[in-house]
């Protein structure tokens, strides 16, 4: 009894996980604490501290996951987070997580950590990849050399974790001082065989076959696209007669099958199989995607597959299924029967009804779109594709006072602008962080919004789509160009580590998507309902009419949009995707002409960020900057919309 009580009084042992970026600290953390943290295949996934407690073999531990660092003398904001925690937290143990493939680099950080005078444990992670590449490390010899326990682990499978647990109470200090001499590193690193050496002919043939299959798939995909555009017969159209016709749910299923066969299978299937089967294919593919000549076509195919997945599968097929099937077919009629007409009915099911608008928009329109986007996006995150795009885009970002590294927060902004604003911490200079934050607030649509936009534009002409996205991209570029020149400060040079191309683990994708969907339901859905209730109250109190009248000159005068669009813009401030869902609904009901769709979508995309992002900008940049950014963005969005509308009118552009 006494033993148990004293044990409870003992403070948990504090273990801080430290390591180079993208070595799997979060994966190790997740396994030790059974807490899921987002894991991806690019440096900079973790930009803040995560704490988790666990009881292991009767003792309490507090684990702290940190952003990856290159070295202790750190440069960027996220790295500083880690340096600070090591100084302030006084850990009982530092667990250095390392990529076993890069032993020299690992030991450089080990030598720096040794100076902190704290017990150290070294986990050489990614043992699976070391084995694949024929890298063998003599962990015992290394342990003898540097005086601390060394374990080899594979965080995603759990290999080696019992050893980590055995050493959690280690009191050993590291004896490494400065650069390790290369002779003994060679000694420890025996049997290194690089994958491109000593491969046999069959390996090469296999790789070539896979490459051919993937290229063929991509060509079929492109033909489907271009063919549909020019009215050529395609696999897609030849399926028309072959698939049974149907209405309602059968029609939805038919549409899904057609999409799957014609668009997703030819590209995705050979690609996935190739990724899974062959490391050498991955290496080769990794090179293709970051060359200009092959990288741009691959980018185009990737974008169009994502577009098919989100715009067609998500925004058409799944939305149809949920909205007309679930809500239109069952829920709403059922509730209509239950609730008599009157105030309650209007509150729940009226023009601004919490269920008929709030929940329907949230669950039936936005959720399927976000979910399908999250799947595609998680896949891209885990494959290692994104950092390679940073290489491709460095030259463009350079003109905007940024460098290719800024591509990561920008593309993450397509997931969630709020989270991406936090990710700007990976950028090295203050100026870069500010520019990236402004661009995110201005013109990067978040997943839900983008999905809904894709849903709307699939219904209108390719030219209109091009005008919307072209205008938004052009604005991002122009604003970046100007900001680069007027803001004080420096851009930093581009140095970025590129992780290997990996076949994404479907379990991680499922878990990540699940987590994000849960987050959406928890964070966004209440706002949808809340926004609708506010609108309902304003409408009842006859204030809505005044508000719409107040912005009338701008909305109907300058932008030439129907006055109802004003309410949609208001919703857009609560959640941008909610506003987009409103436009989606208006567009489908035929309330908007193509020109109005184009103008309203452009303004909505450029318009102020949602409330959540506004608070994040305050946190990262301070209130003054946040207000300035918001003011600038609103004025700019309306101006661009006005100019665009004027141009379409004057040029007589038929969209």
């Amino acid at each position, binding site marked *: 009894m006494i033993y148990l009580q004293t044990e409870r009084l003992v403070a948990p042992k504090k273990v801080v996980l430290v390591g*180079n970026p993208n070595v799997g600290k979060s994966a190790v953390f997740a396994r030790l604490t059974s807490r899921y943290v987002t894991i991806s295949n690019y440096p900079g996934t973790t930009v803040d501290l995560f704490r988790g407690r666990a009881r292991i073999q009767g003792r309490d531990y507090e684990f702290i996951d940190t952003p990856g660092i290159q070295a202790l003398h750190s*440069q960027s904001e996220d790295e500083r987070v880690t340096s600070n925690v090591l100084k302030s937290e006084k850990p009982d143990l530092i667990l250095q997580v390392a990529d076993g*493939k890069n032993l*020299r*680099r690992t030991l450089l950080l080990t030598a720096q950590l040794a100076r902190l005078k704290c017990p150290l444990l070294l986990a050489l992670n990614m043992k699976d990849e070391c084995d694949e590449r024929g890298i063998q490390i003599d962990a015992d010899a290394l342990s003898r050399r540097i005086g601390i326990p060394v374990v080899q682990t594979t965080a995603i499978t759990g290999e080696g974790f019992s050893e980590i647990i055995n050493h959690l109470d280690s009191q050993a200090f590291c004896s490494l001082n400065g650069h390790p001499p290369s002779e003994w590193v060679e000694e420890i690193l025996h049997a290194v065989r690089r994958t491109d050496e000593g491969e046999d002919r069959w390996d090469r043939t296999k790789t070539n076959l896979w490459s051919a299959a993937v290229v063929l798939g991509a060509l079929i995909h492109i033909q489907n696209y271009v063919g549909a555009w020019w009215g050529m017969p395609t696999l897609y159209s030849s399926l028309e007669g072959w698939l049974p016709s149907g209405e309602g749910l059968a029609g939805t299923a038919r549409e899904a099958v057609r999409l799957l066969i014609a668009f997703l299978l030819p590209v995705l299937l050979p690609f996935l199989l190739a990724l899974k089967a062959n490391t050498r294919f991955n290496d080769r593919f*990794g090179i293709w995607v970051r060359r200009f000549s092959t990288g741009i076509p691959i980018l185009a195919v990737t974008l169009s597959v994502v577009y098919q997945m989100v715009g067609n599968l998500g925004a058409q097929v799944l939305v149809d299924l949920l909205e007309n099937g679930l809500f239109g077919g069952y829920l709403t009629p059922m509730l209509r029967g239950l609730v008599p007409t009157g105030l309650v009915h209007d509150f729940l099911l009226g023009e601004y009804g919490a269920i008929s608008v709030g929940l329907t928009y949230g669950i039936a329109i936005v959720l399927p779109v976000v979910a399908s986007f999250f799947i595609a996006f998680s896949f891209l995150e885990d494959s290692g594709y994104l950092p390679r795009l940073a*290489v491709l885009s460095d030259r463009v970002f350079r003109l905007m006072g940024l460098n290719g590294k800024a591509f990561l927060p920008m593309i993450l902004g397509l997931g969630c602008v709020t989270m991406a604003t936090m990710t700007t911490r990976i950028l090295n200079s203050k100026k870069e962080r500010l520019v990236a934050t402004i661009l995110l607030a201005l013109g990067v649509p978040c997943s839900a919004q983008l999905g809904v936009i894709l849903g709307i534009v699939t219904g209108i002409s390719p030219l209109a789509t091009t005008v919307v996205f072209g205008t938004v991209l052009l604005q991002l570029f122009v604003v970046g160009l100007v900001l680069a020149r007027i803001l004080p400060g420096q851009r930093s*040079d581009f140095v970025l*580590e*590129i992780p290997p191309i990996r076949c994404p683990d479907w379990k991680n994708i499922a878990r990540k998507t699940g987590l994000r969907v849960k987050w959406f339901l928890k964070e966004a859905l209440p706002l949808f309902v809340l926004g609708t209730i506010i609108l309902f109250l304003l409408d009842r109190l006859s204030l809505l009419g005044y508000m719409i009248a107040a912005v009338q000159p701008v909305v109907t005068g300058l932008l030439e949009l129907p006055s109802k669009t004003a309410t949609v813009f208001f919703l857009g401030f609560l959640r941008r995707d909610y506003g987009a869902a409103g436009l989606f609904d208006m567009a489908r009901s035929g309330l908007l002409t193509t020109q109005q769709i184009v103008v309203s979508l452009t303004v909505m995309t450029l318009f102020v960020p949602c409330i959540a992002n506004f608070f994040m900008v305050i946190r990262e940049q301070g209130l003054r900057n946040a207000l300035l950014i918001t003011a600038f963005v609103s004025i700019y969005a309306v101006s661009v919309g006005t100019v665009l509308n004027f141009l379409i009118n004057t040029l007589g552009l038929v969209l």
Partner: protein
Amino acid sequence: MTTESGVKLTELRPGEKAKLLFMTPEVELRLFGFGLFPGIEIEMIQRFPSYIIRCEQTEIALETSVASQVTVSKPTI
């Protein structure tokens, strides 16, 4: 006879290997963290749109402004 001569990193062609000799103090600290320190062997992978070099099993993308501050020794025959 094999001699070594110091050239700028930017002069390596794709596929060429070289030993890292030294770099200017401006970029030194940043590159050390990536495991790029004197004596290590690197391989040039790609030159455009950015320089990409491999050191151990890590691929690192560098801008011209950084790459031109690194000197490597290229074995010449």
